[in-house]
């Protein structure tokens, strides 16, 4: 026992643990640095939201204000701008977009991934092509069409251009592609029709991908300023960023504390939703191989 220990002398457990600790610390230092850099604007927003106007532009940055002014800021934000109305609008628009996107994209993606029909490669190339077109490109014809139809200044006009998401079709197609053919064939033998195969058999296994896409979609449309700005002029219909923009211009313009409080309110739902969906989201990203 003793002799073998003195001859080979493997690294002691303590040394191994120390080495691991040091490398872990290094990695975490780098990651924490990145996180701080990314989070700083949010921290600035959060602290500004609870600072009195005089303290916001002080030369020295403090995390916690000398005078807690949060109530006043939130109160003036909520009373000047109809923030809750904006949140509701955001919810309606994002929810409507997401539901229709899923209803349309999932069957399309299934057909592209698992059904054989003439023209499938061409359709898939069109999907890929669609990925390359920025939303700004068709905005003028869309605006004109909506004006002709008389649906400007409606929820529908804010949602309609996004109902068909090529990104969703692409993402779900990649996901469905790896779904075992045998299970689908077994379902066909059991008398399950193609639509029910999609919704009963395949979709329950696709929750990670659906969660991932939902986050992408909701974040994009919650924060979208461009399209609502074009089709909506009625403040009652404004989505959160558009509403904030109106009020940053007019009433709340110089009250930065209240602005920060408003910004906090409109970002909160997203952050909370992400925290809830986080597990699915990360699983979905790794499973589809998109990262």
């Amino acid at each position, binding site marked *: 026992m003793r002799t073998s220990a003195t001859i080979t002398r493997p690294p002691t457990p303590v040394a191994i643990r120390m080495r691991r600790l040091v490398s872990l610390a290094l990695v975490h230092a780098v990651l924490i640095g990145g996180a701080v850099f990314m989070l700083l604007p949010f921290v600035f927003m959060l602290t500004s939201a609870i600072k009195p106007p005089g303290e916001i532009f002080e030369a020295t940055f403090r995390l916690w204000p000398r005078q807690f002014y949060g109530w006043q800021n939130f109160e003036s934000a909520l009373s000047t701008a109809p923030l809750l109305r904006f949140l509701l609008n955001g919810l309606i628009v994002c929810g409507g977009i997401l539901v229709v996107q899923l209803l349309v994209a999932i069957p399309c993606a299934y057909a592209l991934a698992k059904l054989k029909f003439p023209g499938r490669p061409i359709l898939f190339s069109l999907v890929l092509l669609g990925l390359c077109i920025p939303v700004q490109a068709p905005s003028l014809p869309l605006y004109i069409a909506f004006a002709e139809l008389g649906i400007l200044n409606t929820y529908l006009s804010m949602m309609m251009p996004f109902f068909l998401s090529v990104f969703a079709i692409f993402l779900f197609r990649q996901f469905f592609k790896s779904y*075992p053919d*045998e*299970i689908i*064939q*077994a*379902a*066909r*033998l*059991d*008398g*399950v029709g193609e639509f*029910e195969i999609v919704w009963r*058999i395949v979709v*329950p*296994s696709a929750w990670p991908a659906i969660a991932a896409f939902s986050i992408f979609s909701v974040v994009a449309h919650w924060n979208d300023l461009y399209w609502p700005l074009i089709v909506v002029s009625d403040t009652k219909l404004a989505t959160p960023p558009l509403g904030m923009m109106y009020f940053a211009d007019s009433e709340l313009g110089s009250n930065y504390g209240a602005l920060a409080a408003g910004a906090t309110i409109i970002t909160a739902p997203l952050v909370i939703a992400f925290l809830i969906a986080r597990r699915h989201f990360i699983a979905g990203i790794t499973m589809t191989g998109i990262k």
Partner: protein
Amino acid sequence: MAGLTLRGIRKTFGDTAVLNDIDLDIADGEFLTLVGPSGCGKSTLLRIIAGLESQDSGSVSIGGTSVDHLRPHERRIAMVFQNYALYPHMSVFDNIALPLTMTRLNLFERLPLMRHLSLRRRRIMNEIAREVRAVAEQLRIESFFHRRPGQLSGGQRQRVALGRAMVRHPQAFLMDEPLSNLDAKLRVHMRGELTELHARLGATMIYVTHDQIEAMTMSDRLAVMDHGDILQLGTPADVYERPATTAVAQFIGSPAINLFQARVGPGGQVELLGRTLPIEVRNAPTPELTVGVRPEAMRIGGGPCAVTCRFRRRENLGSECILHFDLVASPEVAVLCRVDNGIPIPEGEVPLAFEPRDCHVFDNNGRRIEVESRNAAGRDLRRASEVR
């Protein structure tokens, strides 16, 4: 239950012909096994029978009526897949019940939420539950009704897949290597269960396997396939004792048959490595022949039929062993001999003998040629095989 008939089934994928003109008649209640090397088209044939893939030409009939225009579930055929293909997000009960709920409930009754409005649904679901339970009892899977497939062992999943097939009372069962994912012991056990199940249900079964023992022990008839053709169709004993081609001879039997180059002498007698064997062939198309002798028919010792070999090594199988030799006349030819473990291990060059009746003779295209033995024993055997 019903018999199945395939006529002139052809299938190509792109440029590769996968099935060439397959004709097959499967009797009602028969257990037919398809064997053949990987990629020879067995699974494709099953999928065509099930309607999951469409044939390029030819037709499939079940119980005498053509089903070519029917969709998979309308053919009333059940299939058990190699990897079971259970629905991963459903419980065992739901997996087995699905074929019944799909056919007996209407769309409205299958919708989430809506379905609670239907009174008829409850009655039908009770009926379905009873049938599922009856099947589960036969397979002894009731104890994990509420688990998901992911929480089951391979053998349990296998039984659930069987249950899902049985609950529909299909006209025929198609099984694509259903036991290949199981460990050896469980495979032996499930082999017995499947044979019993077949006897109990009296069902028509088409069974694909790579496993020699499964093929030999379970089937009423055996179809040996290669490159999209059925090389031979017959009872397991028939295929083993009278292989139609060298490919069949090599495929059936383990270890594989020994093949030797031989020639036809002027009188029709077979000459093997300079020795004239006491067997004759008539109307051989070419002078070149192949003589096959199974390892289990060879023994160490001299005789009228013998080849001289050099011993290389021994493989112990427990009660038996396989002796590996090289042919002295052409050392690249390996000769295998399966003998009882008790016999002494030979050294150097030894003669290996076999009986004339154990010789399988093939022409240079690999087709079987019937032999005639010169000695009385061989002739007797020949007659016996004709009677059968």
